[in-house]
């Protein structure tokens, strides 16, 4: 990633023509060749940009960015205030389910919060259609499949229903119950879960994290 802060003007020619007058701006040249011009405000869109693949030619005081579609970005640089090159490595991607994973870890340690007397059999208990988040045993000896979602909707109920069906085929698990757990559980999901004799439970992420923080560990 190359980051250049410069007093510059920008002209775009292609699907339309656009002009950015002379001002201080951030020019980002990404490793894949994308070029984006940012103002000092707004979190979403650059003022102007060219997606890769691009050809960047740096002349004295002027950059020319062209692409195979015939588009052209001309950046006239009056003064370069900063020019940094940063090696960012491979992007691990956006971890959308980070909260769900963390919830699973926190709840695995405290399954009794979901129901009194519940004990954990295993996290990520394998079934033929994928792992169920938690498999527990209740005080009566029944198995309890727990599916954890950040926002639990009817998709979660459907998923839990399928897990319960598959787990129930294993006679050695005994009676299999199901519980949908979310930071929030939608009204539709609550209704559908109750209709299918599944339980649902909302948990407080901050409260769980606070408990984790309050409980000291040996190592």
């Amino acid at each position, binding site marked *: 990633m190359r980051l250049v802060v410069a007093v510059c003007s920008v002209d775009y020619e292609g699907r339309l023509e656009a002009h950015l007058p002379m001002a201080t701006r951030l020019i980002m040249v990404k490793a894949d060749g994308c070029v984006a011009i940012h103002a000092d405000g707004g979190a979403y869109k650059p003022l102007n940009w060219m997606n890769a693949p691009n050809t960047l030619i740096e002349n004295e005081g002027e950059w020319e960015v062209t692409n195979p579609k015939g588009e052209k970005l001309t950046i006239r640089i009056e003064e370069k205030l900063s020019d940094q090159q940063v090696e960012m490595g491979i992007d691990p991607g956006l971890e959308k389910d980070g909260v769900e994973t963390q919830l699973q870890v926190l709840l695995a340690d405290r399954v*009794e919060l979901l129901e009194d007397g519940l004990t*954990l*059999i*295993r996290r990520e208990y*394998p079934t033929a259609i994928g792992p169920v988040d938690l498999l527990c045993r209740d005080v009566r000896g029944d198995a309890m499949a727990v599916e954890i979602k950040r926002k639990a909707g009817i998709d979660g109920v459907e998923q839990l229903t399928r897990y319960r069906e598959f787990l129930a085929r294993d006679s*050695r698990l005994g009676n299999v119950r199901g519980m949908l757990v979310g930071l929030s559980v939608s009204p539709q999901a609550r209704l559908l879960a109750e209709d299918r004799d599944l339980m649902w439970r909302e948990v407080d992420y901050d409260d769980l994290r606070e408990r984790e923080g*309050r*409980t000291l560990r*040996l*190592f």
Partner: protein
Amino acid sequence: MHIRAERDDLADVLSRAARAVGTRSPIDALQGVLCEVTGKRISVTGSDLEMTVRTSLDVEVKEEGTVLIPARLASEAVKKLPAGAVTMKTDDSEVEITGHGPSIRLRQLSVDDYPHIETGDGTPGSEIGGKELVDAINQVVIAASGDDARPMLTGVKVEPIEGGFRMAATDSYRLAVRDLLGTELPVGGLIPARGLKEIGRTVTDDKVRLSVGSRMATVSSERGSLTVRLIEATFPNYQQLLPDSYPNSLTVKKGDLLAAIDRASLVAEDHIPVRLEVGDGGATVSVTRQEVGGTSERVEGTFSGEPFQIAFNPRYLADGITAVDDDEIVLDAQDGHKAGILRGANTPGFTYLLMPVRI
């Protein structure tokens, strides 16, 4: 194969072996128990590859042979027959179990598909009282974790010490350590807690032999053998967590403290910590939960040191008190921020270390 045996005896050997049969085996053959009949005995093996239980019984043998039958179904079928003698006989692809009229036929599983099961690696065992071993196991397995994501915490570390051996388990919040003296054990290992819990239900007897090899541990008796694969992970270095002495020490009656914790737990569900204000003459046990209420009571005892306040997860605390085999409990602590130790006042050999909860 054709045998005749007493219903209760046959049901017993089948159901004990079936306890090792897993609930999630990828191999169909492992859903069964392997019944091998030779001479005058039937030997029954159940396994999930991690744990294997082998039981045997003297029976009337009419025809030798080997058969693989569905584990739970077979033991339940035998139990449901009328009391008295039952017969088990193979017939082409089925096995027929009969007794005083009723007859149940079960389809056999393929013996050829049953994997080779290793039961021990020849390590000589050490003899120990069965009850002594099971009681000690029950004291430490409460502290083992059930979370497979941290496999080293799902086991019980067994290791030789001078004059005997030591068992230790921890889930990182608490640590239970039990010394068993009088039985030498040449080497140790990290034994799955799940396997150890099954010893009492499957093979224990007046005397058992415990052997720990490089890859497996076996407990055997006249009633059979249980073999578990050792966990290949490093158990935390827990010795450093056990100081030689503590400045503060409270001694109370086990029943009094347990009853107080039990009452506090009425309000303390959902991990609300139970507080102990420890000082001269005993401890005040209390819980406050804003939306519910609270409890507070005095537990009389003797104390030495500087008064301090400490809070614990009520379930973990009750587990530890219950595990101490003594009428009098000692709580040793440095202060309210470091781990407390529970032990018996008159029975050395068991230590339960518990981290406090911040208040």
